[in-house]
């Protein structure tokens, strides 16, 4: 089993900020919009070098989405940024009508997703965004796992023509993927090959899955771990290939168990290859205030919970 180590911890939103900084230098069509959360989105380096390509929308997220749609006329590539809660549920009709249905090249970039924004509590945490976004026809949905992958994904989506939802977060987590990685939209990343259970994880849960893999190995269980950074389009081929080998599944996501990655995988299994599946996800609940670590523990989203789910899945084979 491949060992993953890290020398530093960083937040994925800073990976986004670094990606935007690079895009600012590479692609003159990229414009950044923000609904008065510049610091939270780590946009300062982009703004400093490209003040003419930064659009301050004020606290009016719905207008930001409409503006972004309009900005695409003539070839601009708008990156609309705010917290995940305000980037999705608050403005769903704007995204649906003006971006998705109208098929406009808008990148909706959402920070502070999931439980791990912490103490701000359930008003600012969102656990439904992946579901809302993946249900929109034509929307690409991406949830990278660490700083480097978020940076690479940010750069990659500028070259992709079409609406994208890019989700990232606030807490500092281990940086364990390559700094010079090439991000391929829709292509699952094999983290560790194994034979006993397939663990499909996304976002912050990938690092938890890696730790779970080591804990399982200590107990003689050989887990395959795959990073599903792109929820849509889903890499069905990679999922099926893995399940053919292992015969059971754990899905792990910082999201409601309804409507997220787990359900997307379950659809694939139902259609092509029946196999027991265990969800590691929030059990249809809002979040609450707490530290990220406290919340992940309380809502069942740690390596330990993935280990337990893996054992349950194996027992059901």
């Amino acid at each position, binding site marked *: 089993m491949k060992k993953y180590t890290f020398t530093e911890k960083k937040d994925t939103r800073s990976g986004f900020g670094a990606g935007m900084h690079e895009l600012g230098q590479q692609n003159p069509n990229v414009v950044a919009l923000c609904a008065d959360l510049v610091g939270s989105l780590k946009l300062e380096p982009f703004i400093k070098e490209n003040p003419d390509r930064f659009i301050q929308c*004020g606290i009016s997220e719905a*207008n930001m989405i409409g503006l972004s*749609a309009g900005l695409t006329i003539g070839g601009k590539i708008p990156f609309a940024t705010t917290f995940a809660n305000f980037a999705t549920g608050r403005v769903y009709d704007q995204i649906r009508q*003006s971006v998705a249905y109208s098929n406009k090249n808008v990148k909706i970039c959402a920070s502070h997703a999931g439980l791990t924004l912490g103490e701000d509590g359930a008003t600012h945490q969102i656990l439904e965004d992946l579901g809302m976004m993946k249900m929109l026809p034509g929307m690409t949905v991406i949830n990278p796992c660490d700083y480097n992958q978020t940076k690479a994904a940010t750069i990659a989506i500028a070259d992709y023509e079409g609406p994208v939802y890019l989700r990232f977060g606030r807490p500092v987590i281990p940086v364990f993927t390559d700094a010079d990685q090439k991000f391929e939209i829709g292509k699952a990343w094999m983290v560790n090959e194994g034979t006993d259970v397939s663990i499909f994880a996304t976002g912050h849960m990938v690092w938890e899955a890696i730790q779970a893999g080591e804990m399982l190995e200590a107990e003689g269980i050989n887990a395959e771990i795959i990073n599903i950074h792109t929820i849509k389009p889903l890499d069905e081929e990679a999922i099926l290939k893995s399940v053919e080998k292992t015969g059971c599944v754990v899905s792990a996501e910082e999201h409601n168990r309804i409507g997220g990655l787990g359900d997307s995988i379950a659809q694939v299994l139902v259609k092509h290859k029946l196999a027991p599946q265990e969800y590691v996800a929030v059990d249809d609940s809002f979040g609450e205030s707490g530290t990220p670590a406290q919340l992940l523990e309380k809502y069942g989203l740690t390596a330990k919970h993935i280990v337990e789910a893996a054992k349950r899945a194996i027992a059901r084979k």
Partner: protein
Amino acid sequence: MTAEDIFNDPRQISGELRLKVLGLYHKANAGHIGCSLSCIDLMVAVLFLQKSADDTFILSKGHAAAALYACLNTLGEITDEELDTFYLDGTTLPAHPAPRQYKGIPFATGSLGHGLPIATGIAHAAKVSGEDTYSFALLSDGETNEGTTWEAAHYAIQNQLDNLIMIIDKNGLQGFGFTDQVLGETASVEKWNAIGFETIEIDGHDVASISMAIDELKTHKNGLPKAIIANTVKGKGVSYMENKLEWHYLPMNKDQYEQATLEVKERYFNELTNA
């Protein structure tokens, strides 16, 4: 018909477009007639006299789709065969404008309050790119109930988008009531002036005056986005529809259709009826 012809005597085209709108809704046995007739003269002024190839026009009040389709048909973008499919299975011309089909319909509209944000984004993009173009948006007065309209308005003011020309079709009626009784006066000259739009009030059925007003506003490169509050009559051109709430939704029966077309011909082409 040249632009000069239309400017000098717009009755011909206004009448023709009205007949097209009536024909479309009658064949489809569908409504949204009144709200199409209230804005069609505004669309003549913008689409036939003012809009250059590089300008954009967003029909934010997408429920007036038939008026837009009629205009785009006369302008040659929508064929007669396509127009015949209005409301039919598989059509490119549904009740509310669908995107991805025509250059003249770049966005889905009809869910209210989306048009001004989009048009504002287009205006901003043009400014950033240094293009000397105009972004037109046609809103219903009811749409000024929507918060997004005001979000976009403040954005346009803050960013000095004087290339944004918003036209409000102020027919005084919205979905289920008179606008002043539903949510008060959200489309008043005073309000739009007060927040910082350069605002004018015009007769929304006087094509030449509308066009001249836009000509004048275009010369005001003063950093102020433009608002044209166009006083209109819902159902304009058909006496039994005028200022009647129900003609927001109702389809016409055969007799009503015949009366409507006769009236339009009489009013716009000076054709005497046999009645």
